[in-house]
């Protein structure tokens, strides 16, 4: 019973940390509660659908459906995060400095929120479908039945929620003028880590054949399947045995988002320019 609680917690933790960062990143953006809830609920509904069709998905594309699905979902999130950061570079300062500017930014703000809702949705979808498969498996077997499922499911979700709230509360301790810069960095590293994970799925599916050499091994220091390692994996993309392809994807996404943010900031109203540049640093 404890084992099932831990498994559910670990899956919820991954999605929960992303929700915590997104909540902190959208401080002061109107309508964020609705978008984020929509992302979570949509992800949960999607989880059940994905779990129901898991075998079908898995057998697609010469049995690489699972890898393709995971990689696609992660890359969608990377694109959405890049988009959001570019949007923040253009409008974030207005939001932080002058709440009256919010009215003007609402329309594009909704677009950015939609992007983040998608990020949350796919994160919940990916981790959630594993939870559903695991719990329905227990339900179908004689390992513990409904009591185990209830304890594991509800307990794990509650624990995961607590950790995301703690992260959110911690991020809110950062003074507002630094908060956007911090969350922008967190979202950038989050995207880079997702890209590196996506690359790994492509390699596992045999779609990406190059760059499989492991560059270094820090598993004696911190294993990426330990709780701390897993949290760092979500937050900054930590992995104990990165491959060449993973490093290239990671650095590529960081540089790509930085360039995109600079470019978006340069297109912002001139009065904003210096502030935005410093926010991106």
């Amino acid at each position, binding site marked *: 019973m404890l084992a099932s609680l831990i498994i559910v917690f670990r899956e919820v933790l991954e999605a929960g940390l992303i929700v915590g960062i997104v909540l902190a990143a959208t401080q002061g953006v109107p309508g964020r509660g609705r978008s984020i809830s*929509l992302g979570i609920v949509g992800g949960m509904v999607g989880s059940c659908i994905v779990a129901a069709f898991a075998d079908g998905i898995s057998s697609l594309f010469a049995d690489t459906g699972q890898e393709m699905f995971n990689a696609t979902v992660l890359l969608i999130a990377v694109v959405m995060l890049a988009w959001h950061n570019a949007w923040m570079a253009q409008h974030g300062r207005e939001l932080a400095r002058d709440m009256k500017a919010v009215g003007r930014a609402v329309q594009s703000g909704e677009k950015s929120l939609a992007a983040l809702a998608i990020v949350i949705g796919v994160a919940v979808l990916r981790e959630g479908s594993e939870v559903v498969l695991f719990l329905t498996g227990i339900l179908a077997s004689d390992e513990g039945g409904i009591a185990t499922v209830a304890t594991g499911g509800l307990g794990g979700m509650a624990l995961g929620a607590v950790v995301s709230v703690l992260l959110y509360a911690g991020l809110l301790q950062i003074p507002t003028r630094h908060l956007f810069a911090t969350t922008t960095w967190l979202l950038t590293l989050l995207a880079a880590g997702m890209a590196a994970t996506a690359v790994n799925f492509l390699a596992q599916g045999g779609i990406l054949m190059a760059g499989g050499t492991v560059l270094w091994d820090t598993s004696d220091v911190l294993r990426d399947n330990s709780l701390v390692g897993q949290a760092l994996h979500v937050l900054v993309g930590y992995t104990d045995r990165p491959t060449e392809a993973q490093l290239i994807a990671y650095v590529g996404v960081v540089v790509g988002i930085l360039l995109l943010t600079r470019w978006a900031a340069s297109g912002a109203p001139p009065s904003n320019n210096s502030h935005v540049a410093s926010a991106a640093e």
Partner: protein
Amino acid sequence: MRRVSLLSAAFGIALSGAALVHAIPAQAADTVTIVIKDHKFEPAEVKVPANKRVTLLVDNQDATSEEFESGEMKVEKIVGGRKQIKVMVGPLKPGRYPFFGEFHEATAQGVVIAE
């Protein structure tokens, strides 16, 4: 709403690519079968050639799903109840590469030995 339409779009694109993927001739690679039964791997120790790409065929004979996972081999894949999956690993340097079933970690433990 938007998420759903984007996802289905992505799936549509992926689906249209299915024929293409199938057209690529299968890689001539060694395949090693690992059976899951009663939440245990059989054999729990498999030997594979080093420095070569190898396909692991994981055959789950249990009714419950399992997640075949290994940090050492950088593999993470769900295998449904009474289903099989293939995972590509390597090329592996000579050594021991433990793997486990995440959903039943207490009993589902194994190791790939590359030599």
